[in-house]
């Protein structure tokens, strides 16, 4: 596996607060990544720095081993912003034409197919589009550009469930035929599970976790039972969060469980359930500080 993008110790301060703090991130070839974090976690700042829109205070970015200069754009790269304000008063088709000029692998046939799939009128002005439809313009650009490295910042913002499903479907189909590196930041955490292969979780400008999704899901559990039993079971394991009720206790843990653990759980009369990624995420963030 070769590394497409490597961020090394990126720092960015706005006044006294760190938007990014010693952030390291590496993206490999042909992987779909999810980037998760609360509002203000630094996701957009990070993406903007990679896209050369803002400068980091220090740290460096390498594209395929080559260091990016100040304000230099990565090659064969597409960044889909959260909003399309930068298109001003342009029509949808004009925005696509503009994007087509910048991306050498742009596929017009695919772009037109996507316009139809999502039911977009190419002659409408972007300014007049609803929030969801505006997101669709970005999605079409991100997909049809077929860039080797594509970053989507909140691509499904304002989209209803049907449109989101259509997006995931188009993304996966095109990715299967044209593998590339794609990173999606999102708040709809559980929706990213089948789509992405790996996730990065950010909080307060730092990276909390980087893991393969299936690994993560296989180590994220909710333990429930008698307080003493739960305490003895979780001893020596990574506990993210606990909650007591009467003589009972809930514990969210992040730990691979083996057969011996399960046997112990049966003996202690403890139930073990898998946590959804979203639940895991909130326990991780709340317990992280």
């Amino acid at each position, binding site marked *: 596996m070769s590394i497409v993008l490597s961020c090394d110790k990126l720092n960015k301060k706005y006044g006294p607060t760190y938007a990014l703090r010693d952030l390291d991130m590496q993206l490999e070839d042909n992987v779909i990544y999810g980037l998760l974090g609360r509002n203000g976690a630094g996701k957009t700042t990070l993406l903007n720095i990679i896209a050369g829109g803002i400068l980091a205070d220090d740290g460096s970015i390498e594209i395929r081993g080559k260091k990016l200069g100040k304000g230099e754009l990565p090659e064969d790269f597409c960044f889909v912003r959260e909003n399309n304000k930068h298109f001003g008063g342009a029509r949808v088709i004009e925005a696509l034409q503009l994007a087509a000029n910048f991306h050498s692998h742009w596929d017009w046939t695919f772009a037109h197919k996507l316009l139809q799939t999502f039911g977009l009128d190419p002659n409408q002005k972007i300014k007049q589009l609803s929030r969801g439809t505006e997101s669709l313009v970005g999605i079409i650009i991100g997909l049809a550009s077929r860039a080797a490295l594509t970053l989507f910042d909140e691509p499904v913002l304002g989209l209803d469930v049907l449109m989101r499903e259509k997006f995931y479907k188009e993304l*996966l*189909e095109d*990715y299967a035929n044209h593998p590339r590196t794609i990173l999606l930041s999102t708040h709809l955490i559980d929706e990213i599970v*089948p789509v992405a*292969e790996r996730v990065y979780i950010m909080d307060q400008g730092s990276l909390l976790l980087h893991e393969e999704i*299936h690994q993560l*899901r*296989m180590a994220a559990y909710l333990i429930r039972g008698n307080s003493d039993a739960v305490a003895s079971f979780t001893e020596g394991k990574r506990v993210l969060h606990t909650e007591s009720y009467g003589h009972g206790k809930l514990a969210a843990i992040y730990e691979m469980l083996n057969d011996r653990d399960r046997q112990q759980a049966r003996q202690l009369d403890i139930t073990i359930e898998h946590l*959804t990624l979203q639940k895991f995420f909130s326990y991780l963030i709340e317990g992280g500080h």
Partner: protein
Amino acid sequence: MLSGEAMNVTFDDKQPIFQQVAHIIEDDILNGTYREDEQILSVAQFSQLFQINPATVVKGIGLLVNEGILYKKRGLGMYVSTDAKQKIQNQRRDRFYKELLSNLLCEADKLELTTEDIINMIKQLRKE
């Protein structure tokens, strides 16, 4: 093959998705959707149909290749092995005994049901 009920599959949180992918393919071999020496869906088709990452599909298929349930024809795709159905049934019977039945007995103990109670319940269900 590409239409209908397959679209309704939802992936739960109990198992890694790639294991669920393997399970879906196994089910389709058991119910005759794929017969011996027939080709299964391509990774791209599978990924699009079930809306999951292709790498996950590859992993699930890999599991079945290791178990000898699927085999690869170079440049053509993945095919169902001759004794696939038998293999799957043997594996699942084993799991039925070790996991499902032991979980069932665990719950039965909590409810203070005797072995005879359980057998009678099973017979009753079979009749219905």
